[in-house]
């Protein structure tokens, strides 16, 4: 029977294999790994965001307005979509974990996980529609 990631002792190699190649693992492991990766990427984004604001608007407003040209370009839009899906998945999965833990309905985790994925994708699609139609 598969042990949840992070619970079984096994050292760095074991965890790296699980983290980078969670193939053939259960849905619960995928949910866990996706939650961790989205969290780590969002933590990195926090510092990128602070760095960009410091390098541009804090000292050079013209540089910030030039940055907006990139932010409004197709590359910027794709980046926004990626950021949105990370935030929405991480937030909704966080609520799923809290709900499952507090309600004790852990056995329904598969359905809850797919609900999170569908809801995150739908909200990202709707947000992208708003971004693309914003004047």
């Amino acid at each position: 029977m598969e042990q949840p990631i992070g619970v079984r002792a096994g050292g760095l190699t074991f965890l790296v294999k699980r983290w980078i190649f969670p193939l053939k693992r259960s849905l619960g492991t995928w949910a866990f790994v996706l939650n961790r990766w989205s969290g780590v990427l969002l933590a990195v984004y926090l510092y990128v965001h602070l760095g960009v604001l410091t390098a541009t608007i804090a000292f050079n407003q013209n540089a910030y307005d030039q940055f907006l040209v990139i932010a409004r370009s197709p590359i910027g839009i794709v980046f926004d979509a990626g950021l949105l899906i990370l935030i929405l998945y991480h937030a909704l999965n966080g609520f799923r974990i809290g709900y499952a833990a507090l309600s004790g309905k852990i056995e329904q985790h598969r359905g809850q996980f797919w609900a999170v994925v569908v809801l995150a994708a739908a909200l990202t699609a709707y947000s992208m529609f708003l971004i693309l139609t914003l004047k």
Partner: protein
Amino acid sequence: MPQLETKKYAQRSLFSWIGQAVSGVLLVVVLLLHMLFQHFQVGLLTASEVVAHIARPAIFVLEIVFLITVTYHALLGIKMVIFDLKLSEAARQRVSVGLTILGVVTVGWGIILAFLISSQLPG
């Protein structure tokens, strides 16, 4: 005293879990407010619009609360990821101290940044 050690780790893990849950809920609230006031109304603000926006006291306070919450949530999450590597007690303490210092520096950086931006308001 392996049982005491296990209990200690379990208690720390529970406190971390509760900290993540509480800060996560607060983060969703302040993130929604941040998005509502900063992005949903007119899209991406220009530099002068950002300066005028951050200079408003209520928005300034909201952004600082957002900064503190997101930093706490992010670094506690990073700590939980690192602790999954089954570190020794000494290494755990070094990681905790390092991440606490990083958190203080990050919040300090963000507050200085907010002051720098808001101070550019003309007049």
